[in-house]
């Protein structure tokens, strides 16, 4: 390993460590999972431990798009637009089984998984997911952020 790659890998690690503890989320809340998201995001489960305590309500200030709840075909272009408005680097969490696969809404109205529209980094299944699985998903996202090649 040359000196140059040594420094870039160490710099990658440092930036990854910083980024994984500054997860500013944009909660895209459309349905009943929102209640579980609110419970999981409040003080009892304390997502501030993971640096994810402050949701931003503008996609331009957010790093992670939390898609919480059923996405209908009518809503799909809005979700895509919100995703496009976020600045790099950005990640997407599919919260709940509806966003993962469409859930039991296999019908004319519902998108069968948001990964048909936008890329997804972490899937948190459940109807709704327990706060424990939300925290687990958050930690998996942290690992992913810390270990990826950082672009800046």
């Amino acid at each position, binding site marked *: 390993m040359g000196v140059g790659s040594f420094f870039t890998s160490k710099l990658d690690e440092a930036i990854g460590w910083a980024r994984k503890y500054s997860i500013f989320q944009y909660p895209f809340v459309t349905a009943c999972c929102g209640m579980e998201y609110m419970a999981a995001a409040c003080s009892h489960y304390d997502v501030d431990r993971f640096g994810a305590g402050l949701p931003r309500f503008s996609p331009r200030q957010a790093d992670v798009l939390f898609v919480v709840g059923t996405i209908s*075909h*009518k809503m*799909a*272009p809005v979700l*895509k637009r919100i995703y496009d408005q976020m600045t790099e680097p950005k990640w997407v969490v599919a919260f709940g089984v509806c966003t993962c696969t469409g859930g039991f809404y296999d*019908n*004319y*109205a519902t*998108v*069968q998984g948001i990964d*048909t*529209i936008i890329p997804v980094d972490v899937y948190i299944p459940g109807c709704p997911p327990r706060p424990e699985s939300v925290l687990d998903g958050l930690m998996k996202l942290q690992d992913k952020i810390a270990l990826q090649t950082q672009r800046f």
Partner: protein
Amino acid sequence: MRGDGLLQRLRDRFGAAIVDTHEFRGDTTAVVDRAALVDALRFCRDEPALACDMLTDLTAADYLKFPGREDGPRFEVVYHLYSLAHHHRLRLKVRVDEDDAVVPTAVPLWPIANWLEREVWDMFGVRFEGHPDPRRLLMYEQFVGHALRKDYPINRRQPLIGPTT
């Protein structure tokens, strides 16, 4: 007034225009001829003994391939009325054929009928004559067909973006 009394009032007033009536466990229903529908709704609202001043719901049902009703009119538009003064409920129905799925609007009687009729148009394709704003309510403009019709294919998807299957 009890349900049979309500139905009797309607029959006395409209005679043969009341196609059918039934009552089951407090659900009082009258099937009205389409030509008399608006008059019957206005009668239910304004007649002091009925005073059904609230339209609690307006919906429809598709009887395509329904056992025993294969030959009858395909759609039924259903009006659920409630009287705030007398605390009674009354249901009016009107039957329409598929190739003549038009019902006179109830918006002048109850403003809430505006969105409810738009929903029925959106989901069942029953048109409301005289509606001030006859657009879809729930689905997007590009959507083709009417999703709650029994012959709408259960697996047909019409996404605005993304794959079609």
